[in-house]
C-alpha cells in the first residue's frame, strides 16, 4: 500500500523539534528509525498529517557514559551503537546484549532506543533491561522537561504517558551499584528476526558481606501489557542469602505474577513455564556475577 500524503520536517535542534511538536501536536508523528512507523504508515494503520524526522538532531544521537556517572543516552541513539559501544558494554552488558538481539543488523542500524520504548510493544527487547537498571526517561516539551521511571512511562500496549506536544528526549541510567550485576535473557521460536515470546532482566545488588542480597529487581516482558516489575521476588529475596529452595520459590512467584496471553507466537501456558525457567536462570546468573565483581 502507498502511504498517505504528509508534510515532512527535518529539524536540526531540539528546540526546533519541540516547536514543531507544539505546533502540530497529535497531527504529527516523530520519525526516528522508522522501523515501526513506516510499516504502520505503509499499512495505513496510521495516517499522520506531518512527519517530524529527528535524524538531523545531533543532541538526540549522543551517548554520555563516563566512569562513576551512570549514562545518558539520547533518544535517537541507534540500537547497533548500543550493541557495539564498549563503554555501554562494560557498564550495562544486559542493555548492549538486548539491543544486539533486536531484529536484524539492518533494523539495529536504523532503529533507535527511544523508538523501541515509544513503540510500547509488550514484546520489545530494550525496555525490560532499561527498567531493571532503574532508568528514567526525560520527557520534553516547549514548557520544559520532566523525568519519569521507564516503567511508569509505558502504560499499556501502544500507550505512553506522554502529553500533547511532548516527546522522549533521553534516557538517564544510574551508575550500577558496587557488588551488583544485571543480566537479560529471552526466549523466542528462533534466534533471529523473531519477536520474543518472553523476555526478562534481573538486576541484583549484594550487601558488603558479598553474600546477602540487598536489592533485586526482576522485570518481565511480553507477559503483561507493559514491562512487569515483580513485587514478590524482592519481597522474598531481599535480605537473604541465595539457596536453591529460595530460587525455586522466587521463580514460582514470578511465574504467578505473569499474566501472559495466547497468541500466534506462544500459548499463555508455555509463556508461564518459560517465565519460571528464565527467572531461575537469571537469578542464579546475576547472583554469581554480583559475587564476582
Amino acid at each position, binding site marked *: 500500500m*502507498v*502511504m*498517505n*500524503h*504528509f*508534510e*515532512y520536517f*527535518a529539524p536540526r535542534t531540539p528546540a526546533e523539534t519541540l516547536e514543531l511538536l507544539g505546533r502540530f501536536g497529535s497531527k504529527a508523528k516523530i*520519525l526516528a528509525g*522508522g*522501523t515501526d512507523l*513506516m*510499516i504502520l504508515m*505503509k499499512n495505513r494503520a496510521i495516517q499522520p498529517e506531518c*512527519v517530524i*524526522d529527528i*535524524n538531523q538532531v545531533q543532541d538526540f544521537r549522543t551517548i554520555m557514559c563516563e566512569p562513576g556517572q551512570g549514562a545518558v543516552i539520547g533518544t535517537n541513539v541507534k540500537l*547497533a551503537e548500543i550493541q*557495539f559501544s564498549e563503554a555501554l558494554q562494560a557498564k550495562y552488558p544486559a542493555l548492549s546484549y538486548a539491543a*544486539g538481539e533486536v*531484529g*536484524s*543488523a*539492518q*533494523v539495529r*542500524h*536504523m532503529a533507535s532506543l527511544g523508538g523501541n520504548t515509544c513503540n510500547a510493544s509488550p514484546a520489545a527487547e530494550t525496555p525490560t533491561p532499561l527498567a531493571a537498571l532503574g532508568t528514567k526517561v526525560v520527557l520534553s516539551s516547549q514548557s520544559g522537561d520532566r523525568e519519569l521511571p521507564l516503567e511508569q512511562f509505558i502504560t499499556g500496549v501502544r500507550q505512553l504517558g506522554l502529553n500533547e506536544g511532548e516527546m522522549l528526549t533521553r534516557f538517564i541510567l544510574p551508575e550500577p551499584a558496587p557488588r551488583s550485576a544485571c543480566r537479560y535473557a529471552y526466549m523466542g521460536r528462533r*534466534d*533471529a*528476526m523473531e519477536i520474543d515470546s518472553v523476555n526478562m532482566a534481573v538486576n541484583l545488588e549484594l550487601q558488603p558481606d558479598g553474600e546477602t542480597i540487598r536489592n533485586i529487581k526482576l522485570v518481565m516482558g511480553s507477559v503483561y501489557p507493559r514491562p512487569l516489575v515483580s513485587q514478590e521476588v524482592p519481597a522474598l529475596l531481599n535480605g537473604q542469602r541465595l539457596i536453591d529452595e529460595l530460587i525455586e520459590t522466587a521463580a514460582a512467584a514470578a511465574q504467578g505474577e505473569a499474566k501472559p496471553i495466547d497468541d500466534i507466537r506462544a500459548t499463555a501456558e508455555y509463556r508461564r513455564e518459560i517465565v519460571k525457567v528464565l527467572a531461575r536462570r537469571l537469578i542464579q546468573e546475576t547472583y554469581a556475577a554480583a559475587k564476582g565483581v
Partner: protein
Amino acid sequence: MKQLIELNINGRNYEVAVNPRDLLIDVIRKKIGLTGTKKGCGEGDCGACTVLIDGKPELSCIKLAIACQGQKITTIEGLAQEDGSLHPLQQSFVDHGAVQCGFCTPGMIMSSKALLDRNPNPSPQEIKHELSGNICRCTGYKKIIEAVEAAAKVWSQEGVK
C-alpha cells in the same frame, strides 16, 4: 507536492523530484534506474532491499528518500571497479556458488560488506548473526557463509576498500 532533492549514490549526485512519502527503494529503482537493489517483502523482513547509508546497512523499503539527503548511499552497482572487475565479495559469491536465482544476492553482499568493514575477521557465528536479516530461499545459506568467510580472508590480507 513534489520537491527537488539531491541524492548521492555510489559517489554520484542525482537530482530527483520526490514526494515526501516516496521510498528510497522506489526512487533508486524507478527514478534513477539502478535496478540492482531488489524489493522483496517491502516490510523490513527479507533484506533484499539493503543498501549502505553512510556505510551502515539500512532497508531502503522502509526509508524515505527525502530523509537521505546529504548522506552517502551505496548500492550493489557501486561495488565493482570502474574497469568492470568484481569486488572481492562479489567474486567470492560467484566462486563459492553462493548465488542461485540471485534475488537475495545484492542485499546479502551489502550486509556482508557492512560487516567486513566493521570487523574484517568475523567468526562464522557473527556472520550468521549479522546476516540474519537477509533471507535466501535458494541456497540454504551454507555457501553464502563460506563466501563471506573466504572474502574475509582476502579482506584482512589485502585491506580491501
